[in-house]
């Protein structure tokens, strides 16, 4: 089974994961307080540009990753557009009531969801879990106990997917399950969970057998520090935010400054 997609490493991959996490978290919260749709649209476009140019993945995969989040955009926006309240009615049919205000609010919410998604994708596509946890231990003083447990957990995921396929095949050769959803879930959950619990316990013992503990001084195979890519990261996000704000205020697409 192939799990690895080949990608090009860009400057975003070589930034400090803790810093990147902080910057993106900050923007995440910041987006919550943007009420001008023009600014938000610009900001989303900026993120989209970064996503397409600097995550280093082939177009095919970028589109694939983006697709579910685009659906989130559509569904978030449409529910607000179709059922929201407002004064200037554009269209009315039964429960559906589209007004100018609800349309703008819906689009605004959609773009907010989209920028959340893009921030998340930008982070996860350019950060190896191993580097993230090494950085968290070194820069943010996360306890090794937690960091390595997470890493061991990450390793279990592909194993579980493989086991899931085995269980599915096993059910097929026995004639399948003809009971309901609950029964079906049980058939999958019990063998997968019991195997994982046992495996997790064994890995924990194996880690301690290799003298893993929180007490002793440990060294790090990957030393993760800061470099010029980190300056670039901060500058790029300041520029994107500033340009989005300036253009949104001075060259608006729609003559609305606040959708509330």
């Amino acid at each position, binding site marked *: 089974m192939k799990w690895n997609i080949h990608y090009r490493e860009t400057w975003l991959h070589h930034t400090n994961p803790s810093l990147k996490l902080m910057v993106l978290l900050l923007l995440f919260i910041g987006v919550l307080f943007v009420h001008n749709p023009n600014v938000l649209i610009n900001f989303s476009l900026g993120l989209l540009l970064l996503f397409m140019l600097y995550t280093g993945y082939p177009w095919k995969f970028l589109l694939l990753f983006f697709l579910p989040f685009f659906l989130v955009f559509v569904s978030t926006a449409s529910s607000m557009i179709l059922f929201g309240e407002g004064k200037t009615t554009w269209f009315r049919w039964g429960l559906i009531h589209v007004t100018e205000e609800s349309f703008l609010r819906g689009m605004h919410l959609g773009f907010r969801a989209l920028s959340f998604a893009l921030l998340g994708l930008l982070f996860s596509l350019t950060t190896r879990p191993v580097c993230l946890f090494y950085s968290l231990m070194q820069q943010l003083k996360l306890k090794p106990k937690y960091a390595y447990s997470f890493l061991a957990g990450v390793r279990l995921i592909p194993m579980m997917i493989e086991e899931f396929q*085995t269980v599915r095949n096993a059910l097929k050769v026995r004639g399948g399950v003809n009971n309901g959803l609950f029964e079906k879930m049980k058939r999958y959950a019990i063998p997968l969970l019991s195997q994982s619990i046992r495996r997790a316990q*064994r890995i924990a013992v194996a880690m301690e*057998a290799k003298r893993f503990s929180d007490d002793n001084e440990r060294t790090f195979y990957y030393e993760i520090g800061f470099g010029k890519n980190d300056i670039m990261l901060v500058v790029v996000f300041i520029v994107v935010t500033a340009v989005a704000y300036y253009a949104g205020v001075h060259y608006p697409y729609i003559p609305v400054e606040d959708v509330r």
Partner: protein
Amino acid sequence: MKPIASVERLRLKFPGKDTLLFKDLSITFYEGEKVLLLGPSGCGKSTLLQVLSGLIPHSIDVPMKAERVQLPDHWGYVFQDPDSQFCMPFVDEEIAFALENIGVPREQMKERIENLLEAVGLFVDPHTDIHTLSGGMKQRLALASVLALEPDVLFLDEPTAMIDEEGTKEIWQTVKQIARDKTVIIVEHKIDHVLDFVDRIILLNDQGKIIADGQAQTVFSHYKDVIASQGIWYPGVWDEYMAKRQYRRSVVQQEEKMIHLRQFRGYRLRDVKIRVEEATVRAGEWIAITGKNGAGKSTLLHALMKLIRTDGTYELYGEDSKRVKQLHRLLAFVFQNPEFQFVANSVREEIAYSLRLEKRKEAEIAETVERLLRRFHLWEQQNQHPYQLSMGQKRRLSVAASIVSGQRIFLLDEPTFGQDAKNTFALLELLESYREQGATILMVTHDENIVKHFATRRWVIEDGRLVKDEPISQHSPQAAVPSV
């Protein structure tokens, strides 16, 4: 000689069990010794290793009491399951994890990692995904990361139990090279490659008592019967088995065509993973499917069961398989790991499962299930949960539950893998009895002895292709191949 690890009057009991696993067990190991611990499964060999290394009670919480315990200062522990002893995704990172734990400076790590990989004969790029390694390679990586701790004592807890013959050989070769000046304490069920390495054998019985402790060759020859009855794979076990069995294979070569393949191909995604130009399988045949790791043996079984996409001609009993709606009523499939196959909460219900799906009559189900429970020696366990069974019982149950619908074609994916000698022979005899009644067996195996003594034909798979299809000559039971 200086003692390096010992316990005195050890008492240990697992929570929930009625009896003590060890009662006043005393044992001492000396510097530089190579010791093999033998005993039936469940007698506490692994537990003893865990006590001697201090994993019990420091990492595994089991109540124990001992008058005196001497633990070695520097030790390493290799576990049985190659998939559950690593916590990092890449080879170099895994070894680095051990180096980090003992505080080796970062600058020295790269070189140390390279040296360790060389020492265990693992010639791969250090930054290789562990997931892509074979079982034997994973266990040698486990050895490398344990060696990183610079141990004086190595505890090896059945390191080859889940490894095929080739990997087993490699692992023991490696151990012999790296452990010359170390103390090595081994628990193992397949002792072919271990016997010439150890100089002391300790034999335990099922009550956790030491029944023999002494020089390896002496103990082995004096207690051979005990060792045989414990199901251990020792050199010559096949010869003795075949001699005892008064071997007479009735070759029921029948004309009835069970499977016919022509230009048959199996796909994973868009890639052809297995192809068969032409092959016919008749009733009463036992076909051993052999080939290297990853050659496509299991894939062939998956294709025959249509668990993957296939094309070309595939006929069952002369009929196009596309027209067969419920393939699982004609073909029985047994997976390598029995646990993934279990779907019910008791042994009895597990066997009845397929019959209930087919909505057979209650009386008929009860009768069939009872017959199989007895035939597969699971009668006493019929109300237990499948997960509570022993390795051998689990295996037998998985076979019984698969063939319950009266299928006459058995597809088996390494069914004897990880089984001890006793259970392996029991399973093979069961399968043989079905074959004699006209069933057909297609079985993936790595064991040359099974091919030689049980199969009637051999298929060799190479690079996703059936390249050889040859009958196995019928010869005398003597001259077994060195057993696993």
